[in-house]
């Protein structure tokens, strides 16, 4: 089947999509957006987190057909929000706080953190950050510097946050 959706603000079409194909597979294998990572394909780790109509979802658990006609935001789209060559404040904060190690969970966490901050006023409380990120596993950082990054981004001006 043919699936058309808006990804990172751009209309994109994938052909020959099998009904059982995941949104993650279509993004990575058909739309050349490999930023979202496949780490468990069971909806348990959050590495493939994208926003579907502004709701964080595990792209591995969403059938591609379910995304037809809807808005998808991936980690690749955050930069576009901030202007082509600039980093989004959430991305910059991950660098500044040292919140990245192997980088495999990073795209999902950045999308999740972006969503949290978009729907928060000021710097969210510690338990709220932890709860928002609880669906995203990280095996390297022990989460501390990721929390630092979220707080850092929340305290910085930025149109998109």
């Amino acid at each position: 089947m043919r699936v058309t959706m808006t990804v990172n603000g751009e209309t994109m079409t994938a052909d020959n999509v099998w009904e059982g194909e995941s949104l993650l597979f279509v993004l990575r294998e058909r739309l050349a957006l490999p930023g979202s990572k496949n780490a468990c394909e069971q909806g348990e780790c959050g590495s493939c987190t994208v926003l579907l109509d502004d709701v964080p979802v595990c792209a591995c658990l969403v059938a591609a057909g379910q995304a037809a006609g809807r808005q998808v935001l991936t980690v690749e789209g955050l930069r576009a929000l901030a202007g082509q060559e600039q980093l989004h404040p959430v991305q910059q904060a991950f660098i500044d706080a040292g919140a990245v190690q192997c980088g495999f969970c990073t795209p999902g966490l950045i999308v999740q953190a972006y969503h949290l901050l978009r729907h928060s006023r000021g710097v969210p409380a510690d338990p709220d950050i932890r709860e928002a990120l609880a669906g995203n596993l990280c095996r390297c950082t022990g989460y501390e510097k990721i929390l630092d990054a979220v707080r850092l981004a929340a305290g910085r001006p930025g149109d998109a946050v």
Partner: protein
Amino acid sequence: MTATEQHGAPAAFGPMRRKEDARFVRGRGSYVDDIVLPGMLHGAVLRSPHAHARITSIDTAAAEAHPKVKAVITGQTLAGLNLAWMPTLSNDTQAVLATDKVRFQGQEVAFVVAEDRYSARDALELIEVDYEALPAVVDARRALDADAPVIRDDVDGRTDNHIFDWETGAAARTEEVFRDAEVTVAEDILYPRVHPAPLETCGAVADFDKVTGKLTVWETTQAPHAHRTLYAIVAGLPEHKIRVISPDIGGGFGGKVGIYPGYVCAVVGSIVTGKPVKWVEDRSENLMSTAFARDFHMRGEVAASRDGRIRAVRVSVLADHGAFNGTAQPTKYPAGFFGVFTGSYDLEAADCKVTGVYTNKAPGGVAYACSFRITEAVYLVERMVDVLAYRLGMDPAELRMRNLLRPDQFPYSSQTGWVYDSGDYQRQLALAMELAGYQELRAEQRERRERGELMGIGVSFFTEAVGAGPRKHMDILGLGMADGADLQMHPTGKAVLRISVQTQGQGHETTFAQIVANELGIPADDVEVVHGDTDSTPFGLGTYGSRSTPVSGAATAVVARKVRERARIVASAMLEVSPDDLEWDGARWFVRGDPDQGKTIPEIAFAAHSSLELPDGVEGHLDAQTVYNPPSLTYPSGAYICVVEVDPGTGGVKLRRLVAVDDCGVRINPMIVEGQVHGGLADGVGMALMQVIAFDSDGNCLGGSFMDYLLPTAMECPSWELGETVTPSPHHPIGAKGVGESATVGSPPAVVNAVIDALRPYGVRHADMPLTPAQIWRTIQGRPFRTDLAIT
């Protein structure tokens, strides 16, 4: 919170932002699964549903008839190429694809190559395998029973499941001390099987070019050079026609050191089809078939005086190695570096015996930030010190303080022959106690106990031995553990450093640039670090066992110093003075007594490439190479204190605080070091409270998904509290010691000791990890269970 000390770190050292992050935060990292080649096919592995079964037939006809399938490879196919079995990193053999029997659930049986991943998976279901189920050896403690089924009957003459016996220390002398001791304690302690579970599973893209005969393999490997050599030896391919590329790696932790059957199948698939073949395992395959960690069944004994002097430690271990002995560790240490079980204490005697056995479980053993089994050693001794403290009625911090090695005892030769290089242990533990507010915590605990509340405080102190290792003593399959470094200086003073080790998140591109910057007085941004490609880096054994900074970091400093010395001669020609009249000020060679006359490295680099007349015998350019053969291991240490609360109604643990004071010598990039420690602390919380790979009586793996194998999330982790002391390694060129595994080693006993301390009102002296609510509840009832088997 961080408590730091002044230690005069050089200017280039500091919390520099990581160079690699610009790509990662954009989703532009390039991992194996992101590699796409023209015409690439996809592989999938058929795995055994049984833990132990004889294969009576395999019928691949229906799979081969699938319109999108390009090849089906079985053990028979591989046997024709002499590749059905491959050597492991412990001088054993492992089936690539099973021919005679399957020996663990999840073992590789067949490999399908198809046009896409979904078709490859579909075709797996079309392969008919007839199995004759055999009784499985699941309980390691029954593996040596006379009637235990023999797992490795592929080896001629093998009649049991015994792998090795290994002993260290002095048995007779230890027995003497035990006989003479005022107090002895003993405890059975299990370090259960866990899995490192990096977020990126294992995978490979193999591309064999029939015209040039060159094989290129992109792999999730921590040791690209060792893999290349092994492929050459195993497959008979010429080594110069093999290129192993380890691109961005999504976490390794030791699980990506060995060669997995899937890699070999991808290579064979590419040779057979003439197309590139990608194979990436799924999460369950990763958890069920790639290297596990630990699985040490230990009995610890301590002899002491009544006033709390620890005199001797004795340990016996039953090591469950699974169906193939595939531990990735230096050849002559079948139990890894378990010999440091004497801990951080000055003992009169020590003795240890380890027996390794086969069981019908996945192979592995040394994978998961364990420093070659130091996790097990430290857990054993730190648990035993608490058992002793319980028996003596002493405060566990005070008992440790009384027995820790003193600074004047270094270098210290342990009773098992390890030479600890440096440390200031009392100061380190005192700092941890100060940061934690130890005395106040004990006062709070007394108060709360009176109210019937369960609060626990756990202490651990560890010494690590990392940076393997001296070539004379350490090799893996005959490959010595020395690492090369090449430093190329461009005419404009920019540098390219090529190293043999491979980051899996440790930030080598940043840290190693800082080392060069520090030696040459140039900005770290002017140093490009090249790694992970055997065609463009010098040979070395890779990144694991916290060896990158101790070995490759040393190589980097040494090669940069070579460049600096070459620069000195060129500078002498530029300044028309003798090299002996030049001094280095951190950024320039200048004329002694005339500091205005000096040249920076970029100035010298340009001159070295110019028409400047150089002294006779001096080559142009500044490039240099080195191979670093470490003179000794380095010995990081740590003092950790954990505070928990336990709900007596549910057995649930609330982890309140975890204080970690690490001494990893000189810190090159404190931000990265902190991140390494944080990650290890989370590991400790996971292993102590949540993570276990257990099996039922048929050998079914009970930890085969993230729904069954629980990993800590941001909800389970507290805000870590770090401190540091700095005792530079006396033999490392920049005094660094390595930190990648310290917290994974040191935190499990701190957390477990805290929980057991909380349960003291119930008279609990020990219970095995993971301390899940069920295990704690049963422990309170006096019936702790074996966590390695299905709960009974």
